């Protein structure tokens, strides 16, 4: 209740038609909430807050890193956080039974999104744990010469879609297990574990507008795929993942999957349009911009662009009103350019110049336009400050120069 009222108060900061909550939320709603001064733990009282411009939060264009909770998901979860708080494995009272019912309903929701049977879904703490379970299975396989193929469905850095159905076909004909990490793909592109002959699949909650800290692994029953548990304990989840299943989180994951199933086509169309808008506008106004990744087999919501002669991190600093990423969030602390870009053969200087734009369910056209405008402005500015741009304008071939290594 407290969370909900606080959320509503925050929502009230932006003019919203009353009763429109049942629709998809007002676009950009949660991104424009005025940030109050840290000194006051007391809500509102905007009279003494610093001028609005300096406390607005940045636009969020980093959906590959994580996504906001869809309000419909929060609505589904809330009762299980405050009222129906039973342990789903308690067999002896109504609290346990209602929690178990919710867990099984969520399992059905996840299964139906990927064309699986609910008995093939095991809840975990996230796609990372699911990946570990799937790979560990390799070591505990019955036949010593069994092997496993593991491929990402949609790449999180450049958005490229792998030919999963073809790979599945090859694996099944060679009797090799096929695992795919579908964290960025579930709920965004149509997936069917039977059509694509997938044996194991990792699912992440917080990549599909669900809660963080939950995921699932799909494990095929026919033909049976045997996995070894990573953690042992009370034998929950058919012994494959012991530990109390967190009902509120799995209810959130289930709700997120159901919403995704309903919204997939609409979201895909809308996101494609916005993605085209972003890339067309940028490419029209700026020369020497390269899109990384195959343009055909590509999920539109993940756009990775290299702006030649401008370094990625300086552009991120310049675009401080927009939350973006250069390379994956996992490797952001290192000085290495993205391993994905290196693997697809991008020149090293272009790899340093790449920015990833993430467009999601709640991204508005206004946000895209604002981001594009700022991006164009700052790339031009940074190019004016760039010695490489200057050399290229003077007709010097950069590849002919002997650079000093540090």
């Amino acid at each position: 209740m407290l969370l909900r009222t606080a959320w509503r108060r925050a929502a009230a900061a932006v003019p919203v038609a009353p009763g429109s909550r049942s629709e998809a939320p007002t676009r950009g709603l949660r991104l424009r909430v005025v940030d109050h001064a840290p000194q006051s733990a007391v809500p509102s009282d905007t009279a003494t807050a610093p001028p609005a411009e300096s406390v607005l939060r940045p636009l969020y264009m980093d959906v590959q890193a994580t996504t906001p909770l869809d309000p419909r998901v929060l609505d589904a979860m809330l009762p299980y956080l405050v009222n129906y708080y039973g342990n789903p494995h308690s067999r002896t009272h109504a609290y346990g039974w209602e929690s178990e019912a919710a867990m099984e309903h969520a399992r059905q929701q996840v299964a139906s999104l990927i064309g699986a049977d609910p008995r093939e879904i095991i809840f975990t703490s996230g796609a990372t744990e699911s990946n570990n379970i799937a790979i560990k299975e390799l070591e505990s396989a019955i036949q010593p010469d069994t092997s496993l193929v593991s491929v990402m469905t949609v790449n999180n850095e450049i958005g490229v879609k792998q030919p999963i159905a073809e790979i599945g076909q090859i694996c099944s004909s060679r009797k090799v297990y096929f695992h795919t990490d579908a964290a960025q793909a579930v709920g965004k592109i149509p997936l069917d574990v039977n059509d694509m002959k997938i044996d194991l699949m990792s699912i992440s909650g917080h990549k599909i507008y669900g809660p963080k800290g939950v995921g699932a692994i799909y494990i095929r029953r026919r033909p049976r795929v045997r996995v070894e548990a990573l953690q042992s304990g009370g034998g929950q989840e058919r012994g494959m993942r012991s530990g109390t299943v967190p009902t509120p989180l799995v209810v959130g994951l289930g709700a997120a999957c159901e919403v995704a199933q309903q919204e997939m086509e609409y979201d895909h169309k809308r996101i494609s349009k916005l993605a085209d808008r972003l890339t067309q506008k940028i490419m029209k106004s700026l020369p020497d911009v390269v899109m990384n990744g195959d343009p055909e087999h590509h999920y539109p919501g993940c756009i990775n662009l290299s702006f030649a002669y401008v370094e990625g991190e300086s552009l991120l600093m310049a675009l401080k009103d927009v939350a973006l990423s250069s390379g994956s969030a996992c490797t952001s602390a290192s000085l290495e350019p993205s391993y994905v870009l290196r693997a697809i053969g991008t020149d090293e200087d272009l790899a340093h110049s790449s920015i990833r734009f993430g467009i999601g369910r709640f991204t508005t056209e206004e946000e895209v336009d604002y981001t594009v405008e700022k991006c164009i402005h700052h790339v031009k500015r940074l190019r004016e400050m760039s010695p490489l741009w200057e050399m290229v304008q003077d007709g010097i071939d950069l590849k002919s120069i002997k650079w000093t290594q540090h």
Partner: protein
Amino acid sequence: MAAAGAGRLRRAASALLLRSPRLPARELSAPARLYHKKVVDHYENPRNVGSLDKTSKNVGTGLVGAPACGDVMKLQIQVDEKGKIVDARFKTFGCGSAIASSSLATEWVKGKTVEEALTIKNTDIAKELCLPPVKLHCSMLAEDAIKAALADYKLKQEPKKEEAEKK
């Protein structure tokens, strides 16, 4: 101690009320992504961006780094007859810290003699900009850029000196 405790309490309270905890202003041990305001300042209010005539005898040009490493700095100095640096310009391909380091370098060399400019150390630049450990190489490259520019200037003076001696 009490202040730290109160600060922690405020942050916890603010998180509870769904407000994002404000990031601390002092970022001495911040990761590279939290840009210090001095670094941002050099980007937003750039000093000495540009180019000098590199064919001129009084201009020394230093070009250091490599695009493959993600850091290239070009630093130019203009020196008068008395050996004092009267103008400096820079252009940088690199992260915010690299831009700030080279920008600061141009500010510091102005008004110094060629010998004094040689004493500028990367540690001073890093301290002034509060660079985190992962960004120290930017300040080192800025020091290299200064030295390269001075070396280029000295090289240009040598044929002049020979001519003067001959006379």
